[in-house]
């Protein structure tokens, strides 16, 4: 991939006996990238390695073609980071802290103040910007964390579990904000263990499990499926047997048949078999694969 903004080769990271990352090879393009995996999958470790905050036990990683291990400052000057946990001094106002964060990102003092105000307005904290961060609710803190991550105009933002701890409304707002970051010309790496959030916001998925890379491809490719899902009325077994006899791969559960055919039109074959076996049809359509299906299938395959 020639236009990769993030790349890694043979990346390993061990914390004592715990192997947090194992031989991770990555090539990720610009855009909205979902970093998926269960808790402890290695998502935060990968993010910290990309920022040069952690030195990997082995392998190399690059962001915008710059080595994160050898030139971490050059990487950080182009990247914003929203950590998973709290990162605020409780006795400072949001406006002061975000403005200070902008200065730490290399913006002049006067510009920092102006931008802090703009970015806090963007994340919905215009009214609260002069309140101390210690008085903020979880949702407000998440927004302020996002503000400090983008205030210095980074080209890439690394968001570590940005929606964790939020109520449904707060989660919705956060996902909308993340969607908007793409419109502002920023690439986003969005780590989450909630697969639905990734499906809603990202166009590329990096899937990790126990430190190993499971998938690294466009979301569309993951969701693409040749299978047709058929819901029948009555006993599905005669139809399933008929389909199998014609060379289809059939998975039956309750009254649902997932039918995959390597050659030919699956819909025509299903129509014919249902007619021959006299099985009633309730619904039929292309099967939508979710990230959860893929994740569970990969996990099952590995075990």
């Amino acid at each position, binding site marked *: 991939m020639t236009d990769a903004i993030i790349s890694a080769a043979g990346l390993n990271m061990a914390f004592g006996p715990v192997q947090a990352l194992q031989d991770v090879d990555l090539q990720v393009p610009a855009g909205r990238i979902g970093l998926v995996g269960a808790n402890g999958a290695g998502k935060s470790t990968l993010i910290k390695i990309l920022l040069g905050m952690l030195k990997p036990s082995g392998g190399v990683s690059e962001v915008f073609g710059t080595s994160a291990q050898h030139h971490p400052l050059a990487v950080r000057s182009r990247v914003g980071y929203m950590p998973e*946990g709290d990162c605020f001094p409780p006795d400072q106002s949001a406006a002061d802290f975000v403005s200070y964060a902008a*200065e730490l990102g290399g913006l002049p003092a006067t*510009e920092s103040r102006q931008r802090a105000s703009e970015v806090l307005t963007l994340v919905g904290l215009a009214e609260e910007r002069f309140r101390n961060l210690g008085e903020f609710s979880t949702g407000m803190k998440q927004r302020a964390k996002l503000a400090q991550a983008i205030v210095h105009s980074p080209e890439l933002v690394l968001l570590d579990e940005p929606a964790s701890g939020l109520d449904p409304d707060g989660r919705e707002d956060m996902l909308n904000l993340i969607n908007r970051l793409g419109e502002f010309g920023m690439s986003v790496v969005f780590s989450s263990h909630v697969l639905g959030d990734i499906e809603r916001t990202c166009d590329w998925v990096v899937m990790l499990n126990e430190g190993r890379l499971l998938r690294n491809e466009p979301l569309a490719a993951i969701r693409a499926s040749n299978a047709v899902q058929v819901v029948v009325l009555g006993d599905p077994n005669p139809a399933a047997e008929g389909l199998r006899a014609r060379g289809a791969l059939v998975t039956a559960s309750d009254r649902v048949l997932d039918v995959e055919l390597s050659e030919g039109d699956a819909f025509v074959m299903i129509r014919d078999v249902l007619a021959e076996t006299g099985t009633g049809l309730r619904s039929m359509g292309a099967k939508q694969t979710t990230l959860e299906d893929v994740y569970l299938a990969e996990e099952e395959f590995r075990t």
Partner: protein
Amino acid sequence: MSSEGAIFDLDYRRYEGERTGRSKIRWAMVRDGVRKVLGLRRRARRKVLPWGLIILAVLPAVAIVGFRVFTEGLGADELLEDLIPGHADYFQLTFQLTFLFIALSAPELLIPDRVSNVLTVYASRPLTLADYLVARVGALMLVVFAFTLLPQVIIYLGGAILSGQFVDHVTGNLDLLWKIPSGSVAVFATQAGIAFIISAFARRRGLAAGIYIGFTIISAGVAVALAENVNRWFAVINLQAHAIVLIGKIFNEPEISQDTALVEQHISPWVSLLVVIAIATAAAGLLYRRYRRLM
């Protein structure tokens, strides 16, 4: 004026201007540190202690100048010279205030960043661990310098103005221009290292200040007892005394340190200088080592 209003959605504006270098980023951290120490842009109660101590440190200097104005022309100049503290005396006079100021300020600079996990934000920005630590120590140094220098400047300028020969007074006391800052360095270098080390490990500001104050007082008592009863070299444990001895040496007024265990045990001021350098170096090394695990 148009009666029609207009709403502009300014949206997100990319910053396309020039970026500052690391020196400006360091300076931003120093300014942030100074604001923390002085409680600026914080609630009023956070200002009480630092500003209270500053006022207490400056008030005697103002009183001295005022007293000299009041007694001018009484013909008792020689008697007053003995009564009114000079620059070295003033360092000694405000020494415990500076000690308290450092005890309260060092934890303020390090502990909240660590406990509230603000270090993560620093670690994600284009700056190094050394930048962070130098800026934090630099912020305290700047404020402690101001704290110790301000009253000295008041006395110096007050003396120059009251002498009636401002230029002659200034040119006749040019040595004070290096002696006073050197005294401030001695006070800071002796005290700040230990305060920072304690703050690098403690999780509460009050506790860190308490441990530092307790450690200093107890070590002074232990130093005297051990020096008198076991070996005279135990006197070097009395950390505060080193600063007093060095100030006496800098101002060539050894009498201000007569009461310290170091002088009583005939330990050379050069040993004090070595001890202060050793403490500062060890503290810098320990601080770096501790924070390398955190950032």
